């Protein structure tokens, strides 16, 4: 088995976090027994590097650069894909047989090239790591507007305000292209909950996205930390800025904060790593106004308070970080999973960062660093002065970091788990079988719209409802339980099984779920899960009080859905449907559930339909009535969990129609 990694740049030429993260995965997995032969394909940093007439360039064993896309909006490829088996790229990849294609970007690569990869390797599962917001933000992918404000969109008018009216018509097409491409991805990886949440709001299927940290560098041994014990009040504090020099990284804000306190903190010094003199020259900087302002600030603060430390290579980072007490960043956009935070924590350096995007998730305020209000210079100044005046505070933060496992330390295992699950899935999954609803008996659709009520464990029922146009909420659409759990909650009377939620840790399944510790029942509750992660998975404080009100909100939602469910039980027209996706149904369990519902008030003869996959001897799409409304249906195949949207809709309509006698 092998993995083909695809990135928008190669770290030999592009030092961006996403490129580095992709390459670290490639390096790690190509050395792993089961994944040898993995390959890395990246966009060329400059097409002039390619020899005339070439569209692909070899770069060592199983590594290639491809012609860079010149279309930053629609993401067309510039590689000629019309050449069949003898096309440049097809020839390059001819010896590969990847089981996973892990894409780290479509920018610079081109969507059509990625479609071609899927055509050439139809058995490969496709994973896409979302590093920024390019899917929804065609302007630099940062959700940061051209005027420097955070984008609350995305919406067409906001995008036009950044990109100009000329591209308006292309934006709608772009959205469709990205949506279509995303619909073909087998699994998404988000390095932060924040980014995942934005993409869920944008429309990504919550069942197909996991949060997994970027890979740490292979050697995680930190340099010895700078000894803060000797520090006395008003002695010195060296803060370090690491990263690119551009307007959206917030360096100006850091310098302005510094300027507010240097007269009170004479030993305070900022080291800027990643900055060369050309970054301060308006003639050479790509951001002339920014560069000139930066130079004025650096000059006015003087060398006692600002040191330009030049550019650095990734392997120099640890040694450079060893010389600073704290790392500061002030990005003005919703950074997703900044590598500099990961590197700082790995080197046991506390981080001061804005309470924004993924940064507030990676830095635990008061534990591994300090968070300031975005864009608030005075707040940042206050925090820096605190660290300067209270060295003990810095020491505590450093100790906290030392004692806590690094986020991302199990990133390799999490990735491997995702790859394995995807590869293990059947290669002959049902495609999305659909039917035209206008051909379906409208009486059946009307009936189902009001009376269909899912039970139990299969997400397929939720997609079925969506396909039938049933958009009402339902208790068993929100939660997820195996058969045993269903019996338990029906027996317990439903009231108390949402009492002790913890975040689900399985990276594939647990994308937005919490699980009730007592009953083992799962709930879609992304916000609560994120908060629980931040609260170290404990809902209650030591004295038993609630740490978050989100739990109460979710509980109220739960109780509301319970009431709706109860009303459905006593309604004689309701058709309760249980899908035996887990293949755990027995005659006894069917009767037990039937009895439990009858006890809750389900009227005699009211329908309870159990649906399971047909064995080889059973008729497909048939419904058998056992009596008193209890029915068993056999269907060719139920959609597996990861592909719950792949519903065999015609078969479902057939059995539902038979159940209703239509």
């Amino acid at each position: 088995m092998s993995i083909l990694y695809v990135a928008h740049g190669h770290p030999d030429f592009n030092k961006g976090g996403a490129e580095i993260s992709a390459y670290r995965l490639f390096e790690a997995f190509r050395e792993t027994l089961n994944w040898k032969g993995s390959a890395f394909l990246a966009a060329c940093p400059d097409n002039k590097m390619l020899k005339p007439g070439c569209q692909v360039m070899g770069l060592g064993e199983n590594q290639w650069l491809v012609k860079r896309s010149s279309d930053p909006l629609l993401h067309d490829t510039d590689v000629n894909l019309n050449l069949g088996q003898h096309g440049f790229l097809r020839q390059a990849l001819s010896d590969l047989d990847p089981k996973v294609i892990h894409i780290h970007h479509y920018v610079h690569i081109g969507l059509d090239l990625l479609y071609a990869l899927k055509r050439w390797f139809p058995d490969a599962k496709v994973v896409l790591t979302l590093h920024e917001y390019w899917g929804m933000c065609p302007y630099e992918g940062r959700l940061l507007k051209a005027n420097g404000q955070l984008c609350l969109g995305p919406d067409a008018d906001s995008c036009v305000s950044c990109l100009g009216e000329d591209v308006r018509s292309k934006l709608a097409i772009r959205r469709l292209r990205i949506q279509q491409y995303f619909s073909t991805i087998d699994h998404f990886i988000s390095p932060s909950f924040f980014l995942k949440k934005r993409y869920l709001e944008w429309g990504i299927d919550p069942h197909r996205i996991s949060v997994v940290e970027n890979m740490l560098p292979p050697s995680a041994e930190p340099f010895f930390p700078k000894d803060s014990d000797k520090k006395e009040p008003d002695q010195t504090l060296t803060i370090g800025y690491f990263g690119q020099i551009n307007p959206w990284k917030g360096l100006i804000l850091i310098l302005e904060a510094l300027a507010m306190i240097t007269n009170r903190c004479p030993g305070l010094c900022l080291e800027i790593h990643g900055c060369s003199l050309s970054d301060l020259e308006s003639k050479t900087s790509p951001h002339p106004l920014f560069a000139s302002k930066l130079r004025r600030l650096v000059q006015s603060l003087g060398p006692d308070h600002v040191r330009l430390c030049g550019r650095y290579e990734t392997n120099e980072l640890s040694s450079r970080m060893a010389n600073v007490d704290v790392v500061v960043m002030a990005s003005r956009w919703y950074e997703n999973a900044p590598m500099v935070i990961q590197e700082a924590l790995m080197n046991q350096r506390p981080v001061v960062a804005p309470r924004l995007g993924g940064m507030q998730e990676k830095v635990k305020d008061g534990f591994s660093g300090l968070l300031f209000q975005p864009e608030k210079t005075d707040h940042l100044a206050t925090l820096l002065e605190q660290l300067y005046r209270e060295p003990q505070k810095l020491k505590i933060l450093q100790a906290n970091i030392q004692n806590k496992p690094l986020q991302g330390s199990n990133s390799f295992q999490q990735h491997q788990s995702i790859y394995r699950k995807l590869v293990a899935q059947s290669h002959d999954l049902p495609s999305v079988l659909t039917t035209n609803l206008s051909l379906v008996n409208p009486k059946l659709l009307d009936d189902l719209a009001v009376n269909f009520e899912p039970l139990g464990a299969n997400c397929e029922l939720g997609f079925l409802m969506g396909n039938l146009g049933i958009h009402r909420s339902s208790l068993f659409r929100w939660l997820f339980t195996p058969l045993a759990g269903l019996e338990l909650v029906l027996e317990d009377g439903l009231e108390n099984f949402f009492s002790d939620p913890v975040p689900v840790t399985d990276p594939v399944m647990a994308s937005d779920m919490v699980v009730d510790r007592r009953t083992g029942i799962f709930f879609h509750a992304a916000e609560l899960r994120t908060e629980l992660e931040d609260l170290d998975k404990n809902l209650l404080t030591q004295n038993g009080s609630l740490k978050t009100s989100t739990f109460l909100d979710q509980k109220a939602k739960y109780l509301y859905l319970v009431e709706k469910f109860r009303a459905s039980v006593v309604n004689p027209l309701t058709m309760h449907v249980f899908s035996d996706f887990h293949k755990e149904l027995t005659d006894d369990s069917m009767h037990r559930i039937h009895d439990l519902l009858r006890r809750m008030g389900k009227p005699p003869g009211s329908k309870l339909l159990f649906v399971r996959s047909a064995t080889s001897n059973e008729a497909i799409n048939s419904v058998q009535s056992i009596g008193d409304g209890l029915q068993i249906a056999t269907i060719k195949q139920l959609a597996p969990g990861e592909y719950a949207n792949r519903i065999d809709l015609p078969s479902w309509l057939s059995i539902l129609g038979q159940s209703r006698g239509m």
Partner: protein
Amino acid sequence: MPKRQGPIEPAHVCLDLSTSPSAMSVMSQALQQLDQAINDADFSALQQLIVELILQKQGHAFSMELAKRGDLSIVVARLLPLLQRWNQEQLATAGLNRVVAQLEQLTVPVAISNLARFAPGWYGIQGCRPSPGIVEIVILSTDGQWRIFSIRKSVYRHDVTRHPEGHLSCNYSFVGVFNVPDVSALQSVWINGSRATFNIENLSDSLYLDKIDDLLHLYRQARVPIDQLPELMSEGLYDLAYALQKPLKAKSRWGDQLRNEESLGAKNSGLPKISLVIPLFRRWHDFMQGHHAAFCMDPAFNCGFVEVVYVIDDPSIEEDVLNWARTYFHHSPYPIRIVSLRHNLGFGMASNIGVFSASTERIILMNSDVMPSQPGWLDQLDQTCSHHPSALVSPLLLYDNDLIQHAGMELGFSGNSSYPVPCNLHLLKGLSLTQLGSHLEMNEWHVPFLSGAVLAFSRELFLAIGGFEPIFGRGDFEDLDLSARWKQINGPLLICGKSLLCHLERQSINQSSSSESRRWQERFNACLALHINPDIQALAEANI
């Protein structure tokens, strides 16, 4: 006998122009006859009268008579061309050479900038002269027939003092259309008595769209204010357009317009039930990318139920489209047919031929710059059509910011009461969906007219009324006309409120020409709609 020129019959009018009193009386009577023939532009009679003048050798007396008259412009315009054609020796013998010289001194210079033959017998002329008066054009055909045409309205002052042709003070332009159905070719042209040199540009073999472009170009060259276009329609413009589009209306010849047909994507196990017809013109790449992305995500397209028919109405893009499509549609989950037209025929005709070549009874016709907002739109349209089989149905069209682009149209009129110009008033355009009010709860509702951006209908009913009128060429107002005819003949016009699409609006149509020429096309089509559709005329009259 003097040597005669031209097809002049033997004399039927006898003139005695002697100077005796009785002869003077006869002459007076003869001059009355001459005036009558000039006023009637009866060239046959004028020919006879000239013959008699020559026979009687009364040129001198005739000259004296003319000298007594004030305004001779009509004599110059209508008689001089005939005299100039006569044998000069004979004219001199009869003393009529003085008359010729006398009249020639009254002519003014003229230049024909363009003289185009649009179809057998149909000509457009544009030129300039120094005065703003009525323009009288006398033509002599190669087979000796004389014809006269007047341009009374299309005379305009130039914004320059010298015309590019170099004539002094040719500050007034003129433009017009004339029809000489029984004339094979032009031999000579006089404008207000001045013989004009000309080159005929033969456009007979051009495409209808190009002919209309060229026709309107003549009017723009003549600096005709666009607001005067409505009153010029009945001065030959409409008649010419109507004549030119006639060959396109023959359904039996629509198949001849197909150059190529190629099937791609999924092969149908059964026959599709809906054809989605999309004409392509100029901009195609990103539109097709957008369509493909949207269709792939819509379950309705993945079950062999829908066939997408692209109609390439632009030979210049055909090769690129097909090359691209062969790669990118090869694995398409839905069947695609790409038909190429031999020539660019315009949206209406491309649609007609697309519908004609479709194999299904249910058709959805879609502009290339329309993008589905969400899956399910086609099912909804299909359902509405099933419930209302005789209806013409449009979805709700939105802008990319979800504001309403099209929720039906009302007909309005601009221009003055004598010359109203139809205009499409889109209902609730630019407003939010909530302003649909109670309609939001309805599956469909009736509207007065429909935009042609997306229409669902029965193929049979569409073809039965001839589809779109070809006269509308590149597009605009063909949907208004179709709506009016559909409502009159077939059935209701409905908006299907549950079907939502995004219309990027005028993204392909504007690729073809400058904004000024586009404005002319739009106004011309608005005027055509009024002339060709009696229901629209009735509404215009009611509006007055």
